[in-house]
């Protein structure tokens, strides 16, 4: 017994040679060992693999085309079996759509039914959607962020100094405020007219991008520091999540909510939809602008 225990301990310490016993049992071990001894010929391997790939390529292409044809045939057959285009008796025109249109203005206060639907009836989806943007922003930051200290060479070394050109400078000075105003208009009127947070935010971002394009990344990042962008995103998403927590919590527990739809058609109406549009707009604006800065400059 004691002997066995000793054997076990020696085995644990790797001092027992079992390979003599195992050599017959594990031919796979021998082959891997052999594979290790084969000298490494990158060019030989590369050439043979290329040849093999070229041979396989034709079969692969044919297979791909056949598969795509079968797939599209299936999809077209399905489309032929769907309700007709533009008919008013389609299954999608049911009580759900009816309530959104007929009672939407009364219940949410939004004249634009689409805004009422995405920010009030189906607000959880939209909450998720803003977080998709946030996730993408984090991921792009992770991949593209090269802080100034680590940067090997300057990225925009061959940029022209656009701001020294009088025409471009004057036109941009004129155009940027107009674009910004237009973006804010679309943002604030999201519940009254087409538009809303997503499009308004993207338009505002385009104004910022033009500024960064003309006056250069460094000046833009001095004007809009990275920290400010982060704080804006934090506040906007935090506000969004908290206000929706309130409305979901009251809704699910059948409590009275203090948010009232107001008078439809006024700018200050529609309960939470206006502030939510503003929050979403800021998130979209910051995200798009930081995409631009990361792709262009490598940092905010």
């Amino acid at each position, binding site marked *: 017994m004691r002997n066995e225990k000793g054997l076990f301990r020696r085995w644990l310490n790797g001092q027992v040679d079992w390979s003599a016993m195992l050599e017959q049992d594990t031919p796979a071990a021998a082959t891997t060992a052999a594979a290790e001894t084969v000298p490494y010929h990158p060019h030989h*391997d590369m050439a043979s*693999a290329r040849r093999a790939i070229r041979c396989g390529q034709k079969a692969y292409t044919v297979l791909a085309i056949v598969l795509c044809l079968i797939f599209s045939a299936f999809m077209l057959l399905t489309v032929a079996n769907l309700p*007709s285009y*533009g008919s008013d008796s389609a299954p999608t025109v049911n009580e759900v759509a009816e309530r959104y*249109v007929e009672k939407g203005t009364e219940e949410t206060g939004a004249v634009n*039914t689409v805004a009422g639907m995405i920010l009030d009836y189906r607000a959880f989806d939209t909450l998720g*959607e803003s977080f*998709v943007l946030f996730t993408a922003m984090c991921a792009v930051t992770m991949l593209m962020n090269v802080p100034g200290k680590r940067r090997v060479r300057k990225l925009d070394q061959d940029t022209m100094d656009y701001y020294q050109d009088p025409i471009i400078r004057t036109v941009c000075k004129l155009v940027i405020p107009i674009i910004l105003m237009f973006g804010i208009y679309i943002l604030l009127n999201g519940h009254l007219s087409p538009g809303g947070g997503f499009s308004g935010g993207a338009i505002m971002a385009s104004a910022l991008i033009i500024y960064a394009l003309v006056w250069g990344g460094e000046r833009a990042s001095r004007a809009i520091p990275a920290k400010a962008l982060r704080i804006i995103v934090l506040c906007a998403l935090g506000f969004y999540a908290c206000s929706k927590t309130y409305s979901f919590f009251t809704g699910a527990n059948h409590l009275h909510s203090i948010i009232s739809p107001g008078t439809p058609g006024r700018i200050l109406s529609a309960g939470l939809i206006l502030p939510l549009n503003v929050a979403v707009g800021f998130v979209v604006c910051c995200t798009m602008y930081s995409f631009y800065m990361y792709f262009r400059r490598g940092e905010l």
Partner: protein
Amino acid sequence: MEKLFTHLLENYEACVAVVLFVIGLCMLLFDRNLLKKVIGLDIMDTGTFLLLADRGYIAGRSVPIVTDGVTDMANYINPIPAGLVLTGIVVSVSVSALMLSLTVRIYKKYHTLDMDALYLMMSDRRKGGRV
């Protein structure tokens, strides 16, 4: 058969959407250039959105924005698909931004956008080298 074709012609917009989806899918799967894969992804997504949006369209009705206090469903199209597509467009732009940043990083590392060459390099090293 004839009925199938007439129905297909009736749904012409959905057919176009399906064709766009398939073109995008083929680009995403079979194009070797990484950048064109990303463009294919965008085309695929817009094809999907077109399919979704045309399901909400009702001939002869107008935008679902209540005008003059008329809230009868008979005047407006279905707002649901528009809302879903709005969500989808934003998802699509985030995904393509991510793919593009991966593209940039890969190009900086390997100086090629050819996915086949990249796989080849990987399998090549797996075959010979101790990895």
